[in-house]
């Protein structure tokens, strides 16, 4: 049973809206099965990470926290609410995570990556691809979890592009580049936080200035929600204000650091899933240089249930499914028939995101969010380069029948 958004909000205050009991039951059953399996076969910290992934999926869905649309809204209409929410997220995560990975908790390490041609090209391609694909790494995952068929196609080609990216990454790594640059190493954790906050404040001002020029006002929608609906009901069925989602995402990333030792990442798992499928159909991926590096080799040989990004992605998918069921909007994104140009955009966008994520050392989450939260310069370069790619992607969207 489904109802439209208008029908859901038309429910009288205090009365709980209809939830999709089938989807909620299936997602909870899936979570229970997978969590039990991880518990029995692996270790408790992986069960914890599975549930952190589920929480992140709920926050992404209920907060409609998409990096892609946030960037596009500001570029096209000047509305900076989504982009400002992302800056808030980066600032909070940096405050929470930099001190931890800079010696605050022994055994943890930040997300770092080399700075060079590979990073710039990869993030540019990713930025272009995410506007055609309709979502970034986490955006693709949570919309797939919510039953969006077009995004399933994007995910399939994301995985395909990731595998091709693993074949080419060693070539790109030989192009000019330097070792990772960590701000906390030279400025100390608090100096790094102060510098990053100054940059974020500058961007905040810039976003607002352009927004005011284009729309005549500055929106303050970070805490905006339907006030006729109780807080508890909003928490369970959405839609969350951006700020709620940002806080959950930042705290979720901190929990990921504490449990796994490193910040959150999404797209390595896509490459791993693709490589395992390639192995299954007869390709020997163990001969590919990427899969001879220690981490890749261990991950390829062993179970997905001991690979942190995979376990968290499973949780995220099921969390988004649960949230969509609670909101009674499962599969709501697939109601319009797919036209071939939109399908082509999903194929191209997904492939470019997959390829770009390997060259750029991750997506908006693994490279930008976790990189900046670790005060690594590569996170900022990823942000800038992907934004430029995204500008071209936004221009290309109408050619594929996609609205801006």
């Amino acid at each position: 049973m489904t109802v439209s958004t208008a029908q859901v909000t038309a429910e009288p205050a205090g009365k709980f809206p209809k939830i999709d009991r089938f989807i909620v039951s299936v997602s909870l059953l899936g979570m229970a099965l997978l969590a039990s399996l991880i518990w029995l076969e692996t270790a408790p910290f992986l069960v914890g990470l599975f549930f952190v992934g589920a929480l992140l999926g709920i926050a992404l869905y209920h907060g409609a926290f998409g990096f892609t649309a946030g960037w596009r809204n500001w570029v096209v209409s000047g509305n900076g609410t989504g982009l400002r929410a992302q800056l808030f997220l980066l600032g909070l995560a940096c405050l929470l995570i930099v001190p931890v990975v800079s010696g605050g908790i022994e055994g943890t390490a930040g997300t770092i990556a080399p700075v060079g041609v590979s990073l710039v090209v990869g993030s540019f391609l990713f930025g272009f691809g995410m506007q055609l694909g309709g979502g970034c790494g986490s955006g693709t995952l949570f919309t797939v979890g919510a039953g969006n068929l077009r995004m399933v196609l994007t995910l399939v080609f994301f995985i395909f592009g990731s595998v091709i990216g693993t074949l080419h990454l060693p070539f790109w790594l030989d192009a000019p580049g330097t070792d990772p640059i960590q701000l906390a190493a030279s400025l100390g954790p608090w100096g790094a936080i102060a510098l990053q906050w100054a940059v974020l404040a500058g961007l905040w001002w810039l976003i607002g200035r352009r927004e005011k020029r284009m729309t005549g006002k500055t929106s303050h929608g970070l805490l905006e929600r339907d006030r006729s609906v109780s807080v508890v009901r909003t928490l369970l069925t959405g839609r969350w204000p951006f700020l709620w989602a940002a806080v959950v995402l930042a705290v979720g990333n901190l929990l990921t650091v504490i449990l796994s030792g490193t910040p959150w990442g999404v797209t390595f798992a896509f490459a791993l899933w693709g490589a395992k499928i390639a192995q299954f159909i007869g390709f020997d991926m163990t001969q590919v240089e990427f899969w001879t590096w220690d981490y890749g080799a261990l991950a390829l040989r062993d179970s997905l249930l001991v690979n942190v990004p995979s376990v968290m992605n499973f949780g995220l998918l099921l969390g988004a499914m649960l949230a969509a069921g609670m909101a009674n909007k499962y599969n709501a994104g697939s109601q319009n028939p797919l036209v071939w140009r939109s399908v082509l955009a999903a194929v191209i966008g997904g492939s470019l995101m997959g390829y770009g994520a390997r060259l750029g050392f991750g997506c908006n989450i693994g490279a930008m969010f976790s990189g900046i939260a670790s005060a690594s310069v590569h996170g900022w370069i990823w942000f800038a380069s992907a934004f430029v790619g995204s500008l071209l992607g936004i221009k290309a969207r109408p050619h594929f029948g996609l609205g801006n």
Partner: protein
Amino acid sequence: MEQMYKRWRVVVIMIAILVAVMADHLRSPTFAFNMGQGGQTTLMQRDLGACAPCGAPCPSARKE
């Protein structure tokens, strides 16, 4: 009200994913280790010497 999806499709997809994860797990060193058939589990796959989350080496190490 008309349903936006077919229930059986959701169930089939969920079962297919579970079967794929199980098939991968049953062939893994972790499962063999748990069954007492030798092998070694890799609960901690992190490579602290790597220069990127994917395990890529540093450019300086590649030049050596």
